């Protein structure tokens, strides 16, 4: 019975961290396995989001409310610092996503595809024809 309690505590009590790990692995898998550049960016986003969730659950205080000062000394509120940090990280993530998608657009303009294997093929046939470099 004690074993069961321990196990259920591990699974249910820490469920937020299990979700974080699952999302993290999913995101990384998408980045590695998908040949489509836009899907890669999506995978990267899933990966980053898992870290956001990790920080947010880290700052949570049991029974605490949103970290807004009400003047009530008995009020318990969550640790605001991880939230603020992750706000910065989200902004950075959005900038990275925008840049990645912009690059995907430019790649599509010059290669006509956003599939990684087709891009590689195009590069290889370029090299065979001696193209690529300006000279």
């Amino acid at each position, binding site marked *: 019975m004690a074993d069961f309690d321990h196990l259920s505590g591990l699974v249910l009590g820490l469920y937020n961290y299990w979700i974080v790990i699952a999302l993290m692995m999913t995101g990384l898998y998408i980045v590695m396995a998908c040949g489509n550049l836009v899907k890669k960016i999506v995978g*990267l986003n899933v990966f980053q989001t898992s870290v956001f969730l*990790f920080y947010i659950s*880290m700052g949570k205080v049991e029974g605490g409310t949103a970290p807004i000062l009400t003047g009530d000394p008995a009020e318990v509120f969550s640790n605001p610092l991880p939230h603020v940090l992750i706000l*910065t990280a989200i902004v*950075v993530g959005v900038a990275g996503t925008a*840049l990645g998608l912009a*690059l995907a657009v430019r790649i599509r303009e010059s290669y006509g595809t956003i599939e990684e294997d087709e891009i590689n093929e195009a590069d290889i046939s370029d090299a065979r024809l001696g193209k690529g470099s300006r000279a």
Partner: protein
Amino acid sequence: MSTSSGLAMGLVAQLPALQVVVPLLAAPVCSLMRVRHLPWAFTLAVTAATFLISLALLLEVLAGGTISYHMGGWQPPFGIEYRIDVFNAFVLLIVSALALVVLPFAKRSVEREVPASTHALFYTMWLACFAGLLGVVATGDAFNLFVFIEISSLATYVLIAKGSGNDRRALTASFHYLIMGTIGATLYLIGLGFLYMLTGTLNMADLAERLPSVEDNRAVIVAFAFITIGLGLKAAMFPLHTWLPNAYAYAPSAVTAFLASTATKVAVYALIRMLFTIFGFDVGFEVEILTYVFLPLALAAMFSASIAAILQEDMKRMLAYSSVAQLGYIVLGLSLSLTSESGLTASLLHLFNHALMKGAAFLAVGAIFYRLGTVNLAGIAGLGRRMPWTFGVFIVAGLALIGVPGTAGFVSKWYLVGAAIQAGLWPIAALIVMSSLLAVLYIWRTIEAAFFRPLPEDADEVREAPLSLLLPGIVLAAACIVFGIHAAPIVEVAQTAAGALLGQAQ
């Protein structure tokens, strides 16, 4: 009179902040400039000012010890602290000096390789990247470091993609780097989360103080692993270097020279800061990781990347692989620092020397690209006599990369071999010499092509590169020789910094 000196005193006190804020604020201003040469001239002025600031900081730190600057007047550990010690100030000087030397080269080279309509934005990104690199080095706050890493990285992706005017593969190289770089930075963020959960602080000095009390916790090891791999990706530490060769090969020449001599150095700085200041050797597992993970990986980098460099036909790719190999020496020095101070001294020396020699080498290659539009070994056949100064710079940089006595590369390798012998690891000293012989091979291949192959019959009339492209390379090549013969001042700074870092670690 008194007010002006009072103002000057006030400014001196603000130097740590100004170091980062000046280029950071200059970046958006630069984007508004529409007059032809103005963005470049403005960037040069800002970089010169930043260089003077970093010089003043180094002198001040050498004279008066560590500076702690409180951003916005908030006391650490609550506010963000900028902490400048000898190590910091040294790396700040490397970054700003190299940026200042490369910029005069950038003017003509960028005019050739980047469309004129985007020059203002190009230099905006350049300044943002520069500010980010300086920020990583100056800050004493671990989360602030992440933010600056991302600022410099985002700008770097754009700068690399700007090479698409020459070769569209620059776009895919940049995209690849974006994926790898973002994963690296996010891994660092995860590790930082663990550290924050354990200690409740993000201030580096505070972290170093509180970590020993929780060192039995397995989460420390997890945090260490995430942070090391994250920063290792940024630093292109073998085997996490796969993004580097393409990114360096297809970026505009000036960007390659700038990044090769600063960006990986800054990532290595962050890694050293984490290894020595924050974790320190008090945490027992770190000793094992340095000996059983870093040491073999460093040796693998020295050999496999050198061999890869020998096999390259493109000079830029060759030098990029050589960078990975040279980073191996720096990492080797880190793992040897457990037993002797000269290991870390060698790492710091090589950090400086490699910035000089790889900067010089890439500037020479950039000058060749300016004239030829290609840097293939086949394309440079017989060019040695047509462009004697350019190849002179390349040869000096190449000799330094090999580690010939009288060049800067020799000094750091000397200390590295000394550290290996002191640690009782004779075979490693021999391996260092052997891997230097591999460097001889890839440098020789270039020299052979340039001087000993006949010029093709139908070759275009190629003249020596213009002076503004030559001069920065000559300055760096001269520095390679000066610091090879008169190494004492740099060795002294490196030793002071290494001593302080090891003092913190033990």
